């Protein structure tokens, strides 16, 4: 294995060249996808139009790029990165490739509160189109996500945290949230239900700068912190006994990493709804591309951003002028890829 030691301020990582190569390739892909996302839409532009429009403040293309396409594309990439990073952390801690923010109650909790809000406010208040859409839904989602995670975490905690118990409790709580959500969907008017369905499928339609900022802030703060925590995470895969022997303060390290994962997923879900599969698939894809033992955090985030950006490009254009929720595309894209990975790993 080709690995280089990297030391920064007394901390050291072993940097694997393959991982760096994969991450850089992902970043290049991401830039290409963003450029495509700027060009393609109802109004098609050449790359020079895009560049010219960006700097010509008075032009119509400037508005399309700076107010419609760029914030939407950025939201997509940032949300994808946050979800993937969250998934990578949770999968490492739970030592389970099926674990995701859904298991931790974040996305399911958010879905319940949002559906409840949409159904309760109903068409009488303009449904999701009024104040509820711009401020109410993200706030509801964030609150629901944090409450969901607190419930799961609180119930799973018993003189320490067992990854296995966490997953079990998460499954149980997720089932309740999901069924309450289904019930709420039967209570509401079918039009409100339709609007709620778009949100709970994960959608980037009409996302603006107000969605970019919170996700970007969360990433800026939490990415360095999670990278610092990587080393304790690396030790986790040896099992609790070994870690205790190694002297890592397991529960504290785990609690902090989980908190970071929850915040990342909650902010992402508040911005764009629960985009299916990115958190689950990206770490697994990154794991296999880099051939590492644990889902690599940074690389997972890049894979998540690429996946989401590509999916949104398809969601916007495939059935134009109709826009699908991006979450449907991520699932349709991500699932076969995971199937392919399973198939290949069996040979």
């Amino acid at each position, binding site marked *: 294995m080709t690995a280089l030691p990297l030391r920064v301020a007394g901390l050291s990582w072993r940097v694997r060249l393959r991982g760096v190569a994969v991450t850089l390739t992902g970043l290049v892909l991401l830039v290409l996808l963003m450029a495509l996302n700027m060009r393609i839409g109802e109004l098609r532009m050449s790359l020079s139009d895009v560049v010219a429009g960006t700097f010509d403040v008075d032009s119509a293309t400037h508005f399309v790029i700076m107010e419609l396409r760029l914030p939407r594309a950025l939201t997509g990439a940032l949300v994808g990165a946050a979800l993937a990073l969250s998934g990578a952390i949770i999968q490492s801690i739970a030592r389970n490739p099926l674990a995701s923010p859904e298991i931790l109650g974040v996305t399911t909790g958010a879905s319940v509160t949002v559906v409840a809000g949409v159904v309760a406010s109903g068409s009488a208040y303009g449904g999701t189109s009024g104040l509820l859409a711009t401020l109410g839904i993200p706030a509801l989602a964030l609150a629901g996500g944090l409450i969901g995670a607190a419930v799961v975490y609180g119930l799973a905690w018993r003189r320490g945290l067992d990854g296995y118990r966490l997953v079990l409790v998460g*499954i*149980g709580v997720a089932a*309740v949230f999901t*069924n309450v959500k289904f019930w709420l*969907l039967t209570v509401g008017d079918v039009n409100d239900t339709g609007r709620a369905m778009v949100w709970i499928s994960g959608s980037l339609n009409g996302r603006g700068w107000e969605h970019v900022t919170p996700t970007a802030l969360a990433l800026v703060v939490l990415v360095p912190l999670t990278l610092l925590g990587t080393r304790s995470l690396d030790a986790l895969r040896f099992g609790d006994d070994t870690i205790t022997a190694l002297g890592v303060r397991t529960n504290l390290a785990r609690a902090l990493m989980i908190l970071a994962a929850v915040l990342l997923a909650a902010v992402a879900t508040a911005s764009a709804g629960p985009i299916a599969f990115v958190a689950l698939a990206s770490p697994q894809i990154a794991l296999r591309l880099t051939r590492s033992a644990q889902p690599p955090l940074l690389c997972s985030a890049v894979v998540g951003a690429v996946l989401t950006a590509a999916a949104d490009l398809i969601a916007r254009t495939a059935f134009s002028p109709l826009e699908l929720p991006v979450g449907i595309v991520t699932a*349709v894209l991500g699932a076969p890829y995971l*199937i392919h990975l399973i198939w290949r790993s069996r040979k």
Partner: protein
Amino acid sequence: MSATAVAPRLQVLRQRRLTVLLALLAAVFVAIVLSITIGSKSVPLPDAWHALTAPTGTENDIVIRSLRIPRTALGILAGIALGVAGALMQGHTRNPLADPGLLGVTQGAAFAMVSSIILLGASSLLAYIWFGLAGALVASVAVFALGMVGGRGGPTPVTLALAGTAVSALLYALTSAIVLLDEQAMDVFRFWQAGSIASRGSDVVWQVLPFIVVGLVLAMVNAPGLNALSLGEDVARSLGQNIARTRTVGIAAVTLLSGASVAACGSLAFVGLIVPHLVRPLSGTDHRWLLPYSGLVGAALLLLADVIGRVVAPPGELEVGVVLALLGAPFFVALVRRRKPVRL
């Protein structure tokens, strides 16, 4: 331990198993009585007996014969099917979290139902059920095939669970795309997804009955082989087990049982997941007992949940799937917290 000490212990064990069996049968009977008599219109016991034995067309007779009996019968069938399917699935995947949702059965049924609406204009409950059943069968076969590809000893728990998650997510996404485009499909989907055994009618019961009976027979045939498999594939092979055949019979049983109940009732979370955990302390790990116990507990649980859903929110009803989740989850969490969960 000497042979003389083993024989009386076996005797005690056999007696205990029969006692538990009788107790569970009694529980199911009580649940049936409750399910027939309690509802938005409560029927006194003598009237219920009247409706069953010598109906004369009174209002109570009609309520019981056309609504309560089909509903109760479907509850029993679905409860038995899901309980047994859950136990089988957990045994085969060695995954204590396995339930019909895991293998893509639920989403397979949902996808087939909504696509039948938009593509073929299907509009009756019976038509949905046939499509749902077909979808459930195809999805679970696909998941198992996927888990097996390239492997020699059959699917491992992890690949099977991964394959199930992948196929479920894919089907759910396609289903969402359809229901977002079509309001009628959305309306069917949201009520089906909540899970209910109400207003299904006796024709639905007769449609799913054969599938469930065949599934139960296959499950019991599968039990001894599954016992051997739970010792590990190598041990099972050295005991002369045909592993591929045992797996195939098992998955056929799971598919029939969960496919039929999911198509008829929608998504009933937790029966398949929680029942085997409740039953294991009573039955031990012997699947010849675990499976029938799970069936009985599943039936009692489903009927009781349905009765609770009828009385808890008058004048309306809470779908049984919702009640099951609200009842099952705290129990499940308590179970998980009380001791280290059984690692299969």
